[in-house]
């Protein structure tokens, strides 16, 4: 019986020849990401009286939530993180200008197939879009990995999701994920690894794959993978940092999957997650006509260049509804730069949208807070109560295309009429 991607990576990172689900190993991550929470891990180091890092080159620090600082407290916390990075010679330090940690680290070539990556963020699962095992941990545990280089990990069972067919125009991998989360539930893949397979995967861009492995978190996964292929290699060519090599890890043909399911992409339609749970998904027809006050094009799920481009294609030559504020928070500086070169930036501005600086933005409760009774349509990955300000506000989640169509109409709208 063969092995899955998660089993192979966890075996390799714990110095074993093989591991099976349920086994607990001491694993040594290749990269430990900490974002705005970094100062908290620094405080843990002080508390336990540790000063030496296991390997400074394995640390990555990215200040992305609430960046730049909006209060003196934020500023002081960021100062602690910044000083920590400088004092300890952290080369992979990215300040408040860079963008969302996950996207910044992948763009900078710090994520390679087969890597084990942990970090202070649940959406570390996104690294699986490049074939790496990414998973979230708390800030105390991050400090522990900084000091000891390792953490205990349980080897998860793996689910195999096979994709066939082709997405219809106006339908995206975000819709696929909302469909899956709605069907399987918020813990449908609780503690499991998920591998996406099938002919249709090769047709999906790396950006679409990032959305998939990011959103997979919302069905409870520990990690999710798109097996590397020519598109992965192309994305990483010239990008991987000097310490990395392109060495994909694949599942064996006879790997043991706990569960297998398949989805025909051709049958999917635009989906929307309704308040206040991501699993509360509905096909677009069921929510069409719902008034929106704000449209947020942002987050690690869907504020990549392709996402902005999709929105711009729909908004080109059109104006957003006068009652809607369209807030665009690019995922990273690299994305914003590209958008400014290609005209996407201008198109989105001319349509009536506004840009904030790259980062987590409204998804982390920064620029774009909602008032009582307001409704936001967001391309993010969470619509939990109170996540964007008032607990009496409502958040719906959709693809960037649905968002753009809805911003024009002022109500949740089917994007397919624009294709």
């Amino acid at each position, binding site marked *: 019986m063969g092995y899955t991607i998660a089993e192979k990576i966890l075996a390799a990172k714990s110095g074993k020849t093989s591991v099976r689900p349920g086994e607990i190993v001491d694993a040594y991550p290749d990269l430990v990401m900490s974002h705005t929470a970094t100062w908290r891990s620094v405080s843990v180091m002080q508390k336990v009286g540790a000063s030496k890092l296991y390997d400074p080159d394995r640390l990555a620090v990215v200040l992305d939530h609430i960046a730049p600082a909006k*209060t003196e407290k*934020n500023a002081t916390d960021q100062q602690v993180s910044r000083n920590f990075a400088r004092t300890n010679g952290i080369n992979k330090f990215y300040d408040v200008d860079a963008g969302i940690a996950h996207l910044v680290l992948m763009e900078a070539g710090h994520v390679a197939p087969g890597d084990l990556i942990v970090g202070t963020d649940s959406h570390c699962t996104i690294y699986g879009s490049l074939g790496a095992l990414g998973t979230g*941990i708390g800030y105390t545990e991050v400090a*522990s990995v900084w000091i000891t280089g390792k953490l205990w990990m349980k080897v998860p069972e793996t689910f195999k999701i096979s994709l066939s067919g082709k997405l219809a125009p106006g339908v995206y991998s975000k819709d696929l994920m909302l469909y899956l989360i709605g069907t399987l539930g918020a813990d449908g893949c609780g503690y499991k690894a998920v591998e996406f397979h099938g002919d249709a995967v090769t047709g999906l861009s790396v950006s679409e794959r990032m959305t998939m492995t990011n959103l997979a978190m919302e069905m409870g996964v520990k990690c999710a993978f798109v097996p590397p292929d020519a598109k992965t290699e192309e994305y990483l060519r010239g990008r991987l940092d000097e310490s990395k090599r392109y060495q994909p890890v694949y599942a064996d043909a006879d790997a043991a999957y706990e569960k297998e399911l398949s989805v025909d992409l051709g049958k999917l339609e635009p989906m929307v997650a309704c308040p206040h749970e991501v699993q509360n998904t509905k096909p677009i027809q069921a929510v069409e006509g719902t008034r929106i006050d704000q449209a947020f094009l942002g987050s690690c799920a869907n504020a990549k260049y392709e996402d902005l481009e999709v929105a711009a294609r729909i908004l080109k030559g059109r104006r957003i509804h006068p009652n809607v504020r369209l807030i665009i928070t690019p995922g990273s500086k690299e994305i914003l730069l590209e958008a400014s070169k290609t005209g996407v930036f201008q198109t989105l501005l001319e349509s009536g949208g506004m840009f904030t600086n790259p980062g987590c933005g409204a998804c982390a*409760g920064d620029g774009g807070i909602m008032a009582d009774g307001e409704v936001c349509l967001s391309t993010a990955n969470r619509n939990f109560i109170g996540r964007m300000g008032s607990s009496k506000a409502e958040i719906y989640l959709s693809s960037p295309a649905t968002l753009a169509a809805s911003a024009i109409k002022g109500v949740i709208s089917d994007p397919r009429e624009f294709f």
Partner: protein
Amino acid sequence: MEQTIQGRAYKFGDNVNSDIIIPGRYLIYIDRERLAQHAFEVLGEGFPAKLREFQILVAGRNFGCGSAREQAATAIQGLGIQAVVACSFARTFYRNAINDGLPIFECPELYPDVQEGDSLRIDLAASKIHLREKEYAFPQLPDSVKKILELGGLAAYLKTQLHGT
């Protein structure tokens, strides 16, 4: 960690996410008291004050899902809650609770039988929860993980690893 945890139970449903437990805007704090003041406040009137009358939280499936914020476990401890018993936990909350020294137990059989205010007794050595005349078994944590919890969390565990005390 005490060998017996006893107290009145407050009951939640499924999928209580960590944004509900502690909203993102309070993650600028890491101390228990400060966080506890805002724990579960999005649930509306009476929260979190009413939770201070309970010592054990009982929940359905996937408790603590969503964000990896460790303060979810810290905030619950700040309320004076001594243990959480759920049908299942989201993995980030599970790890954070252990690392924060908050005892957690998976026991789906108990859930349907518990009413708000019921008195529970959790016997750690016997791996049993007592409710009225009935007892419910829960799986033991792996030894290495149990050690972290017994010392009161990962920071304390690290201290003993680093300094031997």
